[in-house]
C-alpha cells in the first residue's frame, strides 16, 4: 500500500521537468539522480564533467568533495554498506576515471551497490587519444556488474534508471555510466522512464520448493550441521530470520569475514569467523560437518583453505542470489538460488525437524573452551588484541567499524565482537589498503549520529590520509585509530613465517608525526604507548562529537593467530593457543 503511494508521488514529481520544455544533458543528469532519490554523492570535478558540475551548482544535491577520487569511491562504498542505499560517485574522464578503478573493483568483489558516473571526452573525438581520454568502458567492463556509455541524451533517463536497478537488485554491485561532454551539453526534449526493459536481467528471489524440501530432509538426518553465514545475509537484511532459524534448529553458526554482524557474536551458538584467521572451533566445525548450509557466502579461498580438504564429509546446501556462485568452488548437492531472506522465510514457514546434534554442539562447546583466541603477554608496546577489546568496551560494541586489509583487519574481525548488521565495513575480496579511513567518512555521512571508528594500519593509512582535509572540512567526528607497528604488518608476518625473516621492503622506519599531521588539519591527535594510556585517551575522545586520530604503538612483532598457511586445509591450523 505504502509502496503504491510512493510510486504515485514519484510520478507527480517526475512530471515537473517534462513540462519545462527543452533541457540540456547536464540538467537532465541532475534530475534523473533526484528521481532516484539520491541524497548525497561523492566526487571530484574536472574538464569533462564541468557541465555536470555546473548543473549541480544550479540544482544542488549534497556533494562530498574528496581529496582524491579513490577516497571518493571508498567513501561511497562505506556509505552504501552502512545505509543500504547505493553509493553515487562522479569523476572526470581519464585520470579521474582511472583513479576509481580500485574502488570499483573493490565494490565488485564485495557486492556493494554503486552507481559511478565518469565524464568522457566529446563523442567526436573519442578514439583519437584526446586530452584526458581513457577507454573507461573497456577498462571497467570486467570490474562492473554492467556499464554504459551514453551515446545520445535521450537515452540518459533510461540508462540511469536501469543502472540504479541493476546496482541494487540481485547480487548488488557497481554500475558505471560514462557521459561524453557533448552529451551533457546537448539540448533536447526528453521523456523520463519508470518502466524497465531488461530481458537479460531477471534475478530470482524465491527459492525452489523442491530444493527446500531436500534441505529439510538433509537437516532431519544431520548429526553435525553448521551454518556458514556470509554478507548475503546482510545484503538481504535477513539477520532476524537467520537468528530465528538458528534458534529453532539449534545449529551452530560460522560467519565469513564480510558476514560479521549478520549473526550476534555474543550468541552461544556463534563459533566465530571461519577461514585463514578464523577461530579453531569455526574451522573445526566447517571441516567436520556432515551438513554445511551456506547462506550468502561465496566460498572464497581465504575461507575454504585447500579445497581438497574443505567440508569433505558434508552435504553442501548453498543459498545464494547469484547462481554462478553455487558450485563454483565447492560441489553443492542442494542449490537454492534465492534471496537469503526469502529463502529463510520460506524455510521458517515450513515445519522443519531440528537435527539431533546435541553431541556435536557439546564437542564444539568444548573446543571453544580448549582453543580460544589468544595473544602473547608482555613485551614492548600495546597488545593489538587488548586494544580492540578496549575499543569494543568504550564504544559498547555499537560503533560502525571500518578497516583496510591486513593484521589490524583480522584483529578487528576477531576481537571487536559485532552483534548487529551494518556496523562492519571492510575490504574483504579485493583487500584494499587505504580503504578504511575514507570508507569511515562515507559511513559517518550515512549515520551522522553513530560512533564511527576507522581502524587502519600505519601503512594503509598513509595511502589515503589526505582525507583528513575532508574530515576537517565537514567536521565529521570520525575516530581514526592507527595500529602502528612501523611495518606492513601482514607482509612482515608472512616474511617471518614463510620467508625466513627476510623483511623485504615491509618495514617503514620513517613515518610522519601523526599527531602533528592531525594538528596540521586542525584535528586532535594523540600518540599512546601503553594500554592504560590508550584506554584513557579513548575514554575521553571516542564518544564525543569531534574527530580524533590516535596513533597506537602496538607490539611490532605480534602475529595474527591462529592461522591456516596457504595451501593447507582447515584442519591444519597453526598458532592455536598453546596448552
Amino acid at each position: 500500500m505504502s509502496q503504491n503511494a510512493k510510486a504515485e508521488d514519484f510520478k507527480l514529481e517526475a512530471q515537473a521537468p517534462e513540462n519545462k520544455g527543452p533541457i540540456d544533458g547536464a540538467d537532465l543528469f541532475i534530475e534523473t539522480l533526484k528521481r532516484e532519490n539520491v541524497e548525497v554523492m561523492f566526487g571530484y570535478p574536472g574538464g569533462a564533467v564541468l557541465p555536470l558540475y555546473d548543473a549541480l551548482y544550479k540544482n544542488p544535491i549534497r556533494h562530498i568533495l574528496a581529496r582524491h577520487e579513490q577516497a571518493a569511491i571508498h567513501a561511497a562504498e562505506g556509505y552504501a554498506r552502512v545505509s543500504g542505499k547505493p553509493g553515487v560517485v562522479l569523476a572526470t574522464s581519464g585520470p579521474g576515471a582511472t583513479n576509481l578503478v580500485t574502488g570499483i573493483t573493490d565494490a565488485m568483489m564485495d557486492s556493494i551497490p554503486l552507481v559511478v558516473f565518469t565524464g568522457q571526452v566529446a563523442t567526436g573525438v573519442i578514439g583519437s587519444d584526446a586530452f584526458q581520454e581513457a577507454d573507461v568502458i573497456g577498462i571497467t567492463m570486467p570490474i562492473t556488474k554492467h556499464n554504459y556509455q551514453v551515446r545520445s541524451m535521450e537515452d540518459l533517463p533510461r540508462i540511469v534508471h536501469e543502472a540504479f536497478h541493476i546496482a541494487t537488485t540481485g547480487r548488488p554491485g557497481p554500475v558505471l555510466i560514462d557521459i561524453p561532454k557533448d552529451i551533457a551539453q546537448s539540448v533536447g526534449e526528453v521523456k523520463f522512464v519508470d518502466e524497465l526493459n531488461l530481458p537479460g536481467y531477471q534475478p530470482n528471489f524465491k527459492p525452489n520448493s523442491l530444493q527446500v524440501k531436500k534441505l529439510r530432509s538433509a537437516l532431519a538426518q544431520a548429526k553435525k550441521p553448521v551454518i556458514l553465514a556470509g554478507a548475503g545475509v546482510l545484503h538481504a537484511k535477513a539477520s532476524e530470520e537467520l537468528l530465528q532459524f538458528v534458534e529453532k534448529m539449534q545449529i551452530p553458526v560460522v560467519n565469513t569475514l564480510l558476514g560479521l554482524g549478520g549473526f550476534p557474536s555474543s550468541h552461544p551458538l556463534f563459533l566465530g569467523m571461519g577461514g585463514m584467521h578464523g577461530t579453531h572451533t569455526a574451522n573445526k566445525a566447517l571441516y567436520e560437518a556432515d551438513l554445511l548450509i551456506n547462506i550468502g557466502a561465496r566460498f572464497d579461498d581465504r575461507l575454504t583453505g585447500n579445497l581438497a580438504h574443505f567440508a569433505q564429509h558434508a552435504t553442501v546446501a548453498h543459498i545464494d542470489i547469484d547462481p554462478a556462485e553455487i558450485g563454483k568452488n565447492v560441489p553443492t548437492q542442494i542449490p537454492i538460488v534465492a534471496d537469503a531472506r526469502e529463502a529463510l522465510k520460506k524455510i521458517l514457514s515450513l515445519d522443519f525437524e531440528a537435527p539431533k546434534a546435541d553431541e556435536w554442539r557439546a564437542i564444539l562447546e568444548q573446543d571453544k573452551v580448549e582453543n580460544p583466541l589468544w595473544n602473547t603477554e608482555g613485551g614492548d608496546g600495546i597488545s593489538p588484541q587488548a586494544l580492540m577489546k578496549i575499543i569494543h568496551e568504550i564504544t559498547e560494541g555499537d560503533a560502525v567499524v571500518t578497516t583496510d586489509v591486513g593484521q589490524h583487519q583480522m584483529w578487528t574481525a576477531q576481537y571487536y565482537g559485532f552483534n548487529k548488521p551494518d556496523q562492519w565495513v571492510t575490504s574483504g575480496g579485493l583487500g584494499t589498503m587505504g580503504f578504511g579511513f575514507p570508507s569511515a567518512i562515507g559511513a559517518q555521512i550515512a549515520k551522522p549520529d553513530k560512533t564511527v571508528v576507522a581502524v587502519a594500519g600505519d601503512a594503509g593509512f598513509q595511502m589515503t590520509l589526505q582525507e583528513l582535509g575532508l574530515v576537517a572540512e565537514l567536521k565529521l567526528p570520525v575516530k581514526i585509530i592507527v595500529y602502528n607497528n612501523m611495518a606492513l604488518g601482514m607482509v612482515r608476518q608472512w616474511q617471518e613465517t614463510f620467508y625466513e625473516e627476510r623483511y623485504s621492503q615491509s618495514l617503514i622506519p620513517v613515518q610522519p608525526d601523526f599527531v602533528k599531521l592531525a594538528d596540521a588539519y586542525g584535528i586532535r591527535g594523540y600518540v599512546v604507548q601503553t594500554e592504560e594510556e590508550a584506554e584513557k585517551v579513548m575514554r575521553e575522545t571516542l564518544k564525543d562529537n569531534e574527530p580524533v586520530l590516535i596513533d597506537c604503538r602496538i607490539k611490532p612483532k605480534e602475529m595474527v593467530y591462529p592461522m591456516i598457511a596457504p595451501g593447507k586445509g582447515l584442519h591444519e591450523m597453526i598458532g592455536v593457543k598453546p596448552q
Partner: protein
Amino acid sequence: MKRIVTATVLNQSGVLNRITGLFTRRQFNIESITVGATETEGISKMTFVVHVDDDRMVEQVVKQLNKQIDVLKVNDITDQAIVTRELALLKVMTTPQTRAEINVIIEPFRATIIDVAKDSVTIQVVGNFEKIEAMIELLRPYGIKEVARTGQTAIKRGSQRLVSESKQFSILN
C-alpha cells in the same frame, strides 16, 4: 572436452568485447566464436566452441555468460540433436597436372572452386568440423597456401531425439 554453447544476445555495442573478456578473465579456452543476426532485429546469436576440463567448468561458462546483462539466453547444446556447419576457404597450389586431381578429390565433399589463378585454386567448402578437417588433410600434399575458416555455427534440429533414444543403456553392453 569440447562443448558447443550458444548465446542469444542483445545487439549492443561492446557485447562481443564483454563476452570475449569474460572468457579470457575466467580462463575459458575458446576454439571458435561466430556471431550473426537472428530472425529478430536487435538480437544476435553467438556460437562458441569451448574446451573445458570438466562439467563444472562448462556450468561456470553458462552461468557466467548468463550473468551478463546483455545476454538473454545461454544453452550448452552439445548433447542435443543439432546441426553444426562451418565454411572454409582454402588456397591450394596447383600445377597443370594436379588441377584435375584436386577437382576429383573435392568433388565428394561438395566443395567448389571459386577462384583460379595460374598456380593456385581457391576452394570453398561447407560442412561440420570433421568434414573440413578431412578435406584439408587430403589436400595437404598439394601444398596449402592459406586457410580461412569461419568457425562453427550451430542450430538445434527441428525435432529433438526422445529421451529414451538418446540414453541407451543395456545390461548387455
